[in-house]
């Protein structure tokens, strides 16, 4: 079983509980214009060029030694990934962490994710997935059932806005989140706070109210804007629509948390 993997990031602290290893898979079916991992969007590996690393040798065709010109991902087997993953088992055990499969959209590689889950469980390692929940339920259901934690995004409450900014309808996402919450698996729902797009009370409050009614919700996370996608877009020679945009200041984050404070039974966390 193989998949194109853009990165295996160890000592990952923001992709679920505890200390984790996050496996980023190539390929996504959404087109979020703020994506901070834009290199993961195409289904196949793409070339990236980091001009600050280029030494100007002019021998690109012979292969870049300076890692200025690289491919976004490489094909890895489950065992290749496990080679990295198992090295930190002690830290997962100590912290309640494990593996998080992210992307891209992991459910595009559901078979690979399921095989990775089996391999992790065989070694006593917990596994979580970060998914946009947009693929048909029948396609994602078997994958989700193998997870110890499901993390999913609900980026925009308004369907039209969702379509405009991600390229996809959000109705199936709402439905799948509802069905996933019945699987008996802990869930974390998250909204990336994109200034001027998703960061309004009008957007996040209805999402919070919706998921507050669900079962198995651990918490609702608000992910502050991450501007790191800019350098990757530059490497992909794409325009960064969010160039110069800063993460929300603490006072704005506090205001959003206050707006959600009245929703009973829902823990809120700003990441």
């Amino acid at each position, binding site marked *: 079983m193989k998949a194109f993997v853009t990165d295996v990031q160890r000592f990952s602290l923001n992709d679920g509980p505890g200390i984790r290893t996050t496996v980023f898979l190539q390929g996504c079916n959404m087109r979020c214009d703020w994506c901070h991992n834009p290199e993961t969007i195409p289904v196949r590996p793409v070339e990236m060029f980091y001009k600050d690393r280029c030494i100007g040798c002019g021998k690109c065709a012979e292969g870049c030694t300076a890692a200025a010109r690289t491919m976004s991902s490489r094909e890895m087997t489950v065992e290749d990934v496990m080679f990295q993953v198992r*090295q930190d088992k002690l830290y997962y055990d100590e912290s309640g962490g494990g593996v998080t499969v992210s992307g891209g959209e992991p459910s595009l590689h559901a078979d690979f994710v399921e095989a990775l889950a089996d391999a992790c469980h065989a070694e006593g390692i917990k596994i979580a997935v970060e998914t946009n929940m947009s693929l048909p339920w029948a396609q994602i259901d078997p994958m989700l059932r193998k997870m110890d934690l499901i993390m999913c995004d609900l980026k925009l409450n308004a369907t039209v806005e969702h379509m405009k900014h991600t390229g996809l309808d959000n109705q199936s996402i709402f439905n799948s989140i509802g069905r996933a919450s019945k699987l008996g698996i802990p869930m974390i729902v998250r909204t990336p706070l994109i200034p001027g797009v998703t960061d309004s009370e009008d957007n996040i409050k209805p999402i919070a109210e919706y998921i507050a009614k669900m079962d198995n919700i651990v918490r609702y996370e608000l992910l502050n804007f991450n501007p790191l996608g800019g350098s990757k877009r530059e490497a992909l020679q794409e325009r960064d629509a969010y160039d110069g945009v800063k993460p929300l200041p603490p006072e704005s984050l506090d205001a959003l948390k206050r707006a959600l404070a009245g929703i009973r039974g829902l823990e809120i966390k700003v990441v």
Partner: protein
Amino acid sequence: MGKIRFINEFAADRTFTYDERIALLRARKISQTEEKARAGGADEDDYGLIEQDEFRYTLKPNHPNGSIYGFKAWSENYCAILDRHPIYVDALDAFAAKGFFFLERLRPPGTKWNPDYAYPDLQAIFDRYQIISGIDNCHHFTPDLQIGFDRGWGGILAELKEERARHDESHHEFYDAEIAVVEHVIAFIRRAGEEILELSRIERNAQLAENLRTMGEIDLRIASEPPKTFREAVQWSCWFSMLSRTYNRGSAGGQLEDLFNPFYERDVAAGTLTDDEAVFYLACMFLQDSRYWQLSGPDANDEDRTCHLSYLALDAANRLNIATNLTIRVHDRIDRAFFRKSVELLFKNRQGWPRYSSDKALMEGFMRCGYPKELARRRVAAGCHWMCIPGMEYTMNDTVKINIAMVFEVAWNEMMSTEGERSAEALWKLYGKHLKIAVDATGRGVMHHLNYQTKSQPELILNLMQHGLVKKGVNITDGGANYYNICIDAAGIAVAADSFAAVEQRIDREGKLTFAELKRHMDANYEGVDGERVRQLMLHSERYGGGDSLGDRWAVRISRLWTGLVRDLVRQHAGDFRHVNFIPGLFSWSNTILLGSILKATPNGRKAGEPINHGANPNGGFRADGAVTAMCNSIAAVQPGYGNTAPVQLEVDPQIANDPEGIDKMCAMVMGIIKSGNTLLNINIIDARRILEAHKDPFRYPDLVVRVTGFTAFFAMLSPKFRQLVVDRVKSVNPEACR
């Protein structure tokens, strides 16, 4: 220049809480640090030294080269200093015991070692392999302050006189020197008490006058008598530290609870000590000197020894919040609330304290040398990377180092200048040959030091806090210690391992270039576009720290070879009457710049003159994600495993633990690092932006403290090169934040 008397600074009727006094003392400390930094700073520990111009001492040499050697000269010069050393007094402080300089540094440059005992043959080998031999170094072992607490200076003096009468003339030089020293110590502390009492009558503020009166009375009492109360015991330890530093810089604390808890519990039971007072006294002790203290850990019965005083010590360090060298000894049964509090404070204050040692790894390692568990347990963290049994060991810890990257260079040069096989394996054979030459010479150097150190610099202060030494009547290097466990460290493991890995991967396996081509580019320091292209190729090989990479495997191989060669020194010197044990470690201290400075370009893409890696850490950029876990696993895998350390030096961004869940993760990280087999964790919590700004303008953040290697220091005190080292380490684990 700095004042040394702080009297009548406040209105007569002003009253102070302990917190207010700590805050005022802290502000004074920061201001004194700025003065020291502007006077030139120092790339080392703070030592609590005060910059002043009231007292200068001119050495009275006993050798034509202008230096001092042997018992008599050291004793006479030290006593002369004590006769005239002014007493630093701050009415806000609980204690008086600030020092100004070290006698050992008053010697002319290059005259530390007695030239009558030169070692030219060994020096040639030391120069070839860039060995820091430790010959002529001093004080890197630990006193047991309990001896002083039990006997007081008067009791020690009485014992010295009794033993002198019992010994023949061959020991009289030792006793006469020690007796003179202790007599002058008693006179010095008594003078301090009298002067402070006099100042208490001048001080207009009633509360501070009372403080000075108490301080003076305590000094008069403990000048000769053993301390009886908690405050007296802390004051005694402060005097000892100052006296030891003034002699030859040596001072380490010990297990804080063992030393002070009996006093604390007795005073609390008697109703004469509150927790607020205890915290204040501990804060003043941390202010007085940045010496190393160990907290927590298991007792002799494997029970956790964390007690209420352990918490008070953390509280004191927190309220003072300056450079404080506290080490938490972590074990399976540690009080988890105490451990968590320590991690919280680490992230809250961002001053590089505490750090963490592993009871299990250190104890099991030391037992592998043949020591019983009981002794292994008593070894406490007492220096940058080292452990020592207080009052029982002579160690030379952190003073003996071999630049094993330079050994690589010698092996490389030999392979490339002969016609034999050229491969990573052929290089490894030569490396083994040269490493053995270097280690064996270092072992002979250690023995030379032991044989003649008394002729250069006897340990007149630390001798007095050794069990049984006064009865033997000899200096600690001449059989005065109970055990001789000599630490020998390798520096530059990552440079050597990455170089082997790069050669094996790029030349042997992939055939991307030849040895001759690599040599040509290395000799040219990878200059030119082609050179840079080759450098990048080598730099991006599988590196130590990568996670079970080729570099990791070479590092393990080097560590095993290193460990075997150092341990073989035990056999080579088995006949010595001191029964010398040699313990391998991996540590550079802050010699990374020095040891890299004359090293030429290496096959791992390092250019000539660049620093070597720090301690046992991988080179910067070891992984794209800079994963702490990968790095720490790699360091765990290269532990020599005989009770000395190969420390993890970690730089962490404060943002990763800005909420309780983040603290939980950091607790798990520290525990994971310890459980994975590591021995010591030195950790910096550094805001990347702040450190970059402070690098540009050190005086913008005069209170910024960093753990440079094993020790903490005010960032502003460091030279630009050393500041750059810290900045580079932050960049390697947090590249995004440093853009």
